[in-house]
């Protein structure tokens, strides 16, 4: 019965999240009572939760010794992901959700007081807003307080990707309060200034910020904007974000990649092996490590409550998102995470946003297909390290051994000295059997690759 406060909810002084007995609670402090009443009485809460735009919650008795607080129990999100793990497709959907919520709020006399991308999570294949305390009374004539934050968290990273800036997820990790607009302006090509939609929100915004930063005289100045104009600005943002597309060159090569790696004849055997295990175990969570196009995540989808599939390649994950949206495979959550350098913990005390490994479900069924040769031969990892890592969160492990004389392994060794004398099947199996019990193995026809199903000791 210990109460554990969520480390990331210190920013808002109107309430906080805490965990108790495996449940999530949100404490609402008296300073927010008025806005909370308005949220309910205006019908906004009902409208947003009804449309699944905002997580639902139930009000509960205050069982804590925290004094005058209100307690609510929000719907649980099975896996918390962060904006720097999302593909372009996911970030765009999260941005549109935020704008839709702001429009609905304005209609009912409220406004979002913040617009961080951390307020959005993915549930059942859709973005959903999780911060019930983000709503405040709209005061006639006020501009949107969270506009700058929206530009930093959503607009800047989207626009940069539209203009082909690569590896953005890694840059986003560094800036916990969104990409500084100055940085975006420096990274964007000159032609982005000619875009009449983008220029004001990014370039001009950065310029204004620089010009008026710390200007104390501004305090006495009246900044007024009618609601009609504010709605027009939000609508304009919505039209602009909806039109965003990744440049063609970013999406085409992944099709090639897809064909290239999945044309082998034994793919059906592999699919059957994975399907049989998923079907037999019906786990809460399946983790598809190095998922590539997500073929095996799709196979597992009907048998697990949630499939978390991750790959380091942003365009592969972007395409997977589009693909599963089309097929309505709502329990798959694709994320951009590099297996050899997973998302670190960031923020105050390195506790505010958790590392990827910390957030992984316990007792998952984990897939590691056609990956081990990359980990060992390209990244010099040892079997020992790999087995220990998987054993931390995987009760069951489905792993494919790719021998050294396999054509894909040979490709990796073209420019490298072969220092991997212990990269043998026998050594592989003996190391993994320190952590796992062998349940089943299967040689794939036409190759020397072997599929293993291990269960943690």
């Amino acid at each position, binding site marked *: 019965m210990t109460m554990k406060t969520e480390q990331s909810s210190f*920013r*808002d*002084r109107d309430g906080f999240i805490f965990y108790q007995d495996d449940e999530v609670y949100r404490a609402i402090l008296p300073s927010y009572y008025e806005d909370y009443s308005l949220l309910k009485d205006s019908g906004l809460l009902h409208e947003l939760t009804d449309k699944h735009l905002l997580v639902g919650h139930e009000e509960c008795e205050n069982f804590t010794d925290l004094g005058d607080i209100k307690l609510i129990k929000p719907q649980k999100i099975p896996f918390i992901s962060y904006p720097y793990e999302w593909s372009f497709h996911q970030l765009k959907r999260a941005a549109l959700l935020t704008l839709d919520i702001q429009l609905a709020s304005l209609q009912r006399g409220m406004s979002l*007081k*913040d617009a961080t991308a951390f307020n959005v999570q993915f549930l059942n294949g859709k973005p959903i807003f999780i911060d019930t305390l983000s709503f405040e009374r709209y005061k006639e004539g*006020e*501009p*949107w*307080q*969270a*506009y*700058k*934050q929206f*530009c930093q968290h959503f607009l800047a990273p989207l626009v940069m990707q539209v203009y082909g800036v690569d590896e953005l997820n890694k840059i986003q990790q560094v800036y916990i309060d969104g990409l500084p607009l100055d940085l975006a302006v420096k990274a964007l090509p000159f032609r982005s200034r000619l875009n009449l939609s983008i220029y*004001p929100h990014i370039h*001009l*915004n950065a*310029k*204004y*910020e*620089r*010009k*008026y*930063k710390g*200007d104390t005289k*501004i*305090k*006495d*100045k*009246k*900044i*007024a*904007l*009618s609601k009609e*104009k*504010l709605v*027009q*600005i939000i609508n*304009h943002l919505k039209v602009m974000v909806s039109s965003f597309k990744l440049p063609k060159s970013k999406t085409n090569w992944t099709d090639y990649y897809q064909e290239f790696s999945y044309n082998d004849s034994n793919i059906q055997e592999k699919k059957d092996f994975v399907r049989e295990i998923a079907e037999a175990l019906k786990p809460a969570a399946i983790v598809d490590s190095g998922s590539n196009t997500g073929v095996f995540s799709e196979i597992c989808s009907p048998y697990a409550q949630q499939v978390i599939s991750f790959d380091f390649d942003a365009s592969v994950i972007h395409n997977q998102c589009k693909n599963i949206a089309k097929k309505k495979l709502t329990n798959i959550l694709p994320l951009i995470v590099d297996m050899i350098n997973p998302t670190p913990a960031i923020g105050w005390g390195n506790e505010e946003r958790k590392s990827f490994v910390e957030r992984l479900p316990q007792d998952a069924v984990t897939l590691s297909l056609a990956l081990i040769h990359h980990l060992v031969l390209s990244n010099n990892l040892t079997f020992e390290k790999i087995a220990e890592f998987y054993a931390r969160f995987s009760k069951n492990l489905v792993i494919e051994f790719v021998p050294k004389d396999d054509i894909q392994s040979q490709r990796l060794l073209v420019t490298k000295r072969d220092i991997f004398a212990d990269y043998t099947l026998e050594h592989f199996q003996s190391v993994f059997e320190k952590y796992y019990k062998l349940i089943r193995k299967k040689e794939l026809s036409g190759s020397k690759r072997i599929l293993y199903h291990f269960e943690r000791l």
Partner: protein
Amino acid sequence: MHIPLYIDPGTGSLLLQMLLGAVAAVVLFYKRILYYFYKIFNKKKLEEKINNDDED
């Protein structure tokens, strides 16, 4: 300007919204004029469209 806040809205960003609002108003003004003329010159087409929609 007196607003209690827990995030920094950025003075520049607030001022910019005023400017954008003004621009939006001007754009809307011209769009309305254009739509007015569009309606005059395309009255027939519009009527046809409305009729067709009814048939659907």
